[in-house]
């Protein structure tokens, strides 16, 4: 989503809404969360939500505007947004795009397509191919993705 934000921030506003944790330690924790050191219990109050949200922002230097759902999960309920979901609201305040339920139907490419239909496609250069690993590359530099 950050790439989409960077591509279209001159045309559209973006807002991230932090909702209840999907895989907290005291519920359905995933192995990947342990591996990535993203281990939090489900917040029981707003102060805990604020702390986790700030950890996220700092860790990823997340550039998109951020709001935290109330502890009664009002935004989540209004938008049926748990665990993750995308919407686009048009200038008249109506739903212009409704994404599918995450994680299985969470599809940022659909939001990008909506923005592209209005403001044009933003193309990116394909990633450079990885250098071939041959004898001259065996210096420790290969595989670092630089």
């Amino acid at each position, binding site marked *: 989503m950050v790439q989409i934000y960077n591509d279209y921030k001159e045309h559209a506003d973006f807002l991230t809404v932090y909702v209840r944790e999907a895989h907290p330690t005291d519920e359905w924790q995933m192995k990947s969360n342990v591996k990535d050191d993203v281990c939090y219990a489900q917040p029981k109050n707003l102060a805990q939500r604020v702390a986790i949200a700030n950890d996220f922002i700092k860790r990823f230097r997340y550039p998109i505007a951020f709001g935290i759902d109330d502890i009664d999960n009002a935004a989540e309920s209004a938008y049926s947004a748990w665990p993750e979901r995308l*919407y686009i609201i048009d200038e008249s305040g109506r739903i212009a795009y409704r994404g599918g339920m995450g994680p299985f139907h969470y599809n940022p490419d659909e939001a990008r397509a909506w923005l592209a239909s209005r403001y044009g496609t933003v193309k990116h250069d394909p990633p450079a191919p990885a250098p071939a690993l041959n004898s001259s590359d065996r210096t420790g530099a290969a595989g670092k993705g630089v």
Partner: protein
Amino acid sequence: MTLTLFWKWAIAVFLVVLLAAFLALCKMAGSPKDAYGMLRYALPHMHRGNLKVGDDAPDARLLALDGTDHFHIRERTGNRPLVVIFGSYT
């Protein structure tokens, strides 16, 4: 006798279907523990919802990152399209 045999088969078929469904869920979720997590914690909270394209966007009050200020989603709409990204850290 026939009825008893029928119920024995019915129960056996039911158990086999139940086992197959659980194994399929385990495969989809990753492990029996994840299958339990999905059933216990995820499915009860996942809702398709009734919002449709063209509906008025609901409003909700949000807390800012400073933990003090509040704002409403609809305060951010009106001038340009607003892309709203719902999610969490984990």
